């Protein structure tokens, strides 16, 4: 083992789509283990680095589902650049809380919020081209791109994310033990 070529550090990108950043907070819950992680990992696009676009990476961690056109672009960028793409948390896996709007008609929703709501006068649905358009339904990310792994939980605990990442980086097929595998 001693004469093998030292492995380059693993490049990781993270993003939150239609999520609440709770999964990212949970990521930070690894606490001091973040320092261990930093020895083997370097970060590309992520709220932690403020890099705006993703370059070629080993691992992409996606929090949140897909609710608008921008989410689609970001997700595609990650899929194009990341060898391994991971859905992190309930929203990325199932759509989660944002998907509660899926049983409502989007047109009715926009009308209710921007036009008909009490106290709104001369309302109108915002049409600035800078704003991403909403999809008619919120989708889990695996319905839009190919996804390699899933870490369930709302959010998954710091322990779960740590266990998963160290497995993945160590070349072991990630397998969360029962206490870490939960969907709530």
């Amino acid at each position, binding site marked *: 083992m001693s004469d093998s070529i030292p492995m380059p550090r693993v490049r990781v990108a993270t993003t939150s789509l239609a999520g609440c950043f709770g999964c990212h907070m949970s990521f930070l819950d690894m606490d001091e283990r973040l320092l261990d992680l930093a020895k083997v990992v370097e970060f590309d696009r992520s709220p932690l680095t403020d890099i705006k676009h993703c370059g070629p990476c080993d691992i992409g961690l996606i929090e949140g589902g897909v609710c608008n*056109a921008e989410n*689609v672009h970001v997700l*595609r960028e990650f*899929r*194009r650049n990341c060898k391994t793409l991971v859905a992190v948390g309930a929203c990325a896996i199932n759509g989660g809380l944002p998907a509660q709007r899926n049983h409502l*008609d*989007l*047109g009715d929703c*926009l*009308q209710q919020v921007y036009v008909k709501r009490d106290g709104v006068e001369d309302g109108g*649905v*915002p*049409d600035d*081209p800078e704003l*991403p*358009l*909403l*999809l*008619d*339904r919120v*989708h889990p990310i695996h*319905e*839009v*791109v*190919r996804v390699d792994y899933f870490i369930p939980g709302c959010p998954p605990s710091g322990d779960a994310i740590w266990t998963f990442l160290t497995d993945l980086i160590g070349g072991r097929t990630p397998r969360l033990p029962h206490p870490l595998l939960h969907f709530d």
Partner: protein
Amino acid sequence: MHDAERVAAQAVERHRREPSQLLQVLVETQDAIGYLPAAALTRIAGLLELPRSRVEGVAGFYSFLHTEPVGRFRILFSDNIIDRMLGSRALMERLCRRLGVSPGQVSPGGEASVDITSCTGMGDQGPAILVNGVAVTRLDEARVERIAALVHAGTPLAAWPAEFFRVDDNIRRRGALLGADFVPGSALQAAMKRGRNGWLEEMRVSGLRGRGGAGFTTAVKWGACRDAPGADKVVVCNADEGEPGTFKDRVLLASQADRVIEGMTLAAWATGARQGLLYLRGEYRYLLKHLRAVLAVRRAAGLLGARILGESGFDFDIDIHLGAGAYVCGEETALLESLEGKRGTPRIRPPFPVTHGYLGRPTVVNNVETLAKTTLIALQGGAAFAATGTPQSTGTKLLSISGDCAYSGVYEYPFGVTIEHVLEDCGAHDPQVVQVGGASGVTIASHEFHRRIAFEDVPTAGAFMVFDGRRDPFEMARNFVHFFAHESCGFCTPCRVGTALLKGYMDKLASGKGAKMDLADIEWLDRLLKNASHCGLGSSAPNPVIDTLLKFRPAYERRLVSLDFKPAFDLDAALETARRMTGRDDPAAHLDRREEV
């Protein structure tokens, strides 16, 4: 609403307030009212001293029970792949147009509702429908027009032309069972002459194995039940012939009912059972009158009831239970649950029914054909029976043959017959695929037509569906996957969710949005269903997909549009509402389909 409660109460009283009769009470209440109003369910729960949730749970489980009003004429199209090949979908559209109703809906005036249902067991004379639970066969455009007129006129079902309800036996090849005349009571006399032990020994010599699919040795089952502790043993005839493409039990019940009932009585003689139950699938309820008449004649002849054929201590009688549209009830432990008036959720085995069956009592559950075969063993002896077939699969097997062949119907062959032999007999001109054993069975490609029908080679409960070069094996598999997703009892997650996911993937491929990745996911789901399901329904649900992916992979691959991944939905179309609401049409208001990765 007062009326509904009264009707429900009468049904409960007819069944002596027996909670195990819940399903029969619900069926009869619905017969009288048309559906099951909430007030009726509450009344039934009160009178049977069952939780309201339990009653609602049962009412919600069975396809033929409705807790919402349905049309005065409820028309269900059998949706097996064979019915579809005979044009059922176009006929359903035509009928819907004539009646001004869309599938799954009730017409505005409440006169009719049209929907699909799982295979009704009429593959040799389809396309078939059920009208208010009664089978109508040989549908064509002319018949659809006449039905539409009868529905419009409000003509009661009893006044419809009898020709509509004609169900033919279509027996094409007769062997030991179908070829011999039978004198009711003769098999019983022969078996009683041998004594109870001698009769069971004869059964053992015959090597008879269950004809319902699993192929368990009948004598072992009977012996285990006889030896199980408890004096109140039960014999159950499983006439819940729900496997798509199977209809041989229907023919036996129609033309050989005496043999079937005598087989149950022979099982009682061997095991010491005093109670018999025949579970008739709801689709075959038109046979109920006939079967009850046969029972009555046999009672009058001393072949059922107390002291059968004058033998003191040999008391046995049979009740008929009606199913209500649930394929899973063909599984013997689900059938027992259903007999007890519960949802048809399969039990965990062991304990097996032979020790803990109906109401916890030692129970023999046998298929219709198995029971009919025992009369041959009683009359000719076990050795004569074992002389036909193969050493491991003795006797003959009834096949229900349908699809692309000249002569659909029931064929009786000694076990060991080759598939190509059968194909030649039934006049299949260009057979490419044969689905043996129904949706849960084996897909046979042409290079395997030399294989034999036998438990040790190609086992089957009786279905034999033939597909020629015009047919698409993928569409066959997709039809079966839809069937399993509909029939999953919902008890275990691997099957409930797995069959729904599998259906989603098959539909995605069918809609031309498939990708290589989907095939990998389908194979993963196949493994999950096979290994993690609670019962045979879930573990056999992926069979048609596994087999066709192996033997007809190009049928899947030619549907793929991408080697990587494609969403099942149109992303740009998903922005349409927002575009309309904002009045935008700038480049950022669109998602490029070519950019998908």
